[in-house]
């Protein structure tokens, strides 16, 4: 059994999980065109954090990760015990690569810098598993706690906008020329964003100042099909959801809502609709957070799970911003407006390059 809490977000929408949820609840998006931002094409919207404080001697990514960790630690009643940090990212500080190959370009360097500045000693694990990284980190944290390997785990999901990633997705022709439209019939690609999300996973709900959520379980699975194209049968996502439900000892009917990956590329969203349909998850409300934040890559899974935690506190599943008329291969219940509802269990899913998929289930806790 494990609990997740002390959650925090830094995104273009602002600082703090509550602030981010409140903005999204009002339908505000962090995506916009940037006229004067280095390396961001001015005719395409991106979700870039413009208002932030740099820590002395640290990069933007290191500064924001440190600040987010410090906030999460400040929301714990009890800091005792053996800690692990799981730093989840696709590219770390890849901007450094423009100056050449160096040890500082390695994503683990960011984790080491941040860990050295925290008051608490932590072991470090760095997960770089494409766009499922953030959710995979939570699943790992849950598994480490459940097997008594650690007392407390700080999970971090973090990726910043970079020319490196932007130019790559441009070459794939995967970027939408307007704010992305997840699950919409007229979607035409993703929007890139940046965000930092943190949360702490422990075995005791009393460790947290505010009531945490329970992590019931999660799993990953590969499509075994293609390294960049989504599976036509949604095989890996279907299998990861099946395993996550088994880990959680839940039936399909016990899932109240789904926070999907929903990148707004044609094939990804179709693939997800096929996997949900195969699972019999066609009635449950589904949303994607990409219209508020863009695709935040390694951060996405944790960022969007934190938004699910906020949804539980507010008894409200948010609309899929950008989706006006849902249109996917299989019909699923995409939310186009905010929906007030009881949320005891939420399924969170992610999919990424390399054919990887991850799913996890969280449950509301009475405190």
């Amino acid at each position, binding site marked *: 059994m494990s609990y997740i809490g002390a959650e925090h977000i830094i995104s273009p929408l602002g600082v703090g999980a509550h602030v981010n949820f409140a903005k999204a609840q009002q339908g505000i998006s962090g995506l916009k065109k940037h006229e004067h931002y280095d390396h961001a094409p001015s005719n395409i919207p991106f979700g870039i954090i413009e208002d932030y404080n740099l820590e002395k001697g640290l990069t933007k990514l290191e500064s924001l990760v440190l600040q987010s960790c410090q906030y999460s630690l400040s929301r714990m009643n009890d800091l005792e015990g053996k800690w692990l940090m799981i730093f989840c990212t*696709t*590219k*770390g500080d*890849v901007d450094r*690569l*423009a100056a050449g*190959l160096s*040890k500082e*370009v*390695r*994503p*683990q360097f960011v984790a080491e810098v941040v860990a050295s500045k925290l008051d608490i000693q932590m072991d470090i*694990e*760095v*997960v*770089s*598993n*494409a766009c*499922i990284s953030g959710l*995979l980190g939570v699943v*790992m944290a849950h*598994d*480490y706690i*459940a*097997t008594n*390997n650690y007392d407390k785990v700080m999970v971090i999901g973090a990726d910043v906008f970079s*020319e*490196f990633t932007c*130019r*790559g997705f*441009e*070459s*794939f022709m995967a970027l939408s020329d307007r704010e992305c439209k997840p699950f919409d019939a007229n979607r035409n690609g993703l929007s890139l964003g940046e965000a930092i999300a943190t949360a702490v996973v422990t075995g005791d709900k009393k460790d947290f100042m505010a009531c945490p959520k329970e992590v019931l379980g999660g*799993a*990953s*699975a*590969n*499509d*075994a*099909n*293609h*390294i*960049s194209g989504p599976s036509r049968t949604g*095989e*890996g996502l279907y*299998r990861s959801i099946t*395993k996550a439900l088994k*880990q959680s000892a839940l039936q399909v009917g016990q899932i109240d809502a789904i926070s999907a990956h929903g990148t707004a590329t044609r094939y990804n969203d179709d693939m997800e609709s096929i996997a949900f349909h195969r699972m019999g998850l066609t009635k449950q409300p589904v949303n994607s957070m990409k219209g508020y934040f863009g695709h935040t890559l390694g951060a996405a899974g944790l960022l969007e799970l934190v938004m699910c935690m906020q949804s539980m506190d507010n008894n409200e599943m948010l609309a899929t911003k950008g989706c006006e008329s849902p249109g996917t291969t299989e019909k699923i219940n995409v939310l186009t407006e905010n929906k007030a509802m009881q949320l005891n269990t939420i399924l969170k899913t992610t999919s*990424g*390059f*390399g*054919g*990887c998929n991850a799913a996890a289930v969280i449950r509301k806790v009475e405190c």
Partner: protein
Amino acid sequence: MLKAISSIVIKKDLFEINGKSQPLPENDGTLKGLMSAFYHSLNMSYPKFHKMDNLSKLGVIGVELLKQEHDLESYQDDAIALHFQNASASLDTDWVHQQNINEGKAASPANFVYTLPNIVLGEIAIRNKWYGENLFTLADQFDQDRWMKTNQVLVAQNKAEAVLGGWVEVLEEAFELELYFVAKE
């Protein structure tokens, strides 16, 4: 308890199967050439191999060699977890993409797709039709005890019956593969 059942080690001038030294296939002294030499010595017929970056090639070759030592066909298609680690992530391929940017050239989608370290897991999964757990972690050096601890957790949580993986590192011409198949004793 999990135990390493088979191992493949390929480093510069070193090739071992289950701890026993083997002759390297004849090659031109480059990493790309060595990978081609292994491909031919294994009689592989897998055209996709030639599109892969060196990191994926090294992982795929390691698994092909391991399959000759240990029968993995008896496992269900999702029973083997893939858990690899390295120091340089996908920097070997990232550097090619970055140089294109630095020189004002167009980015190559065929190259960009390899700018994530877990792509090697995808290539191994596709080649073998394995649908199991995937995990790619980064560390400056291979900590085998730590790697094994995570494997114990995956098995204890009933997510896998066995784990295939270890250390797969490539940066320019420097490379190291330490591949293990671990299962319950």
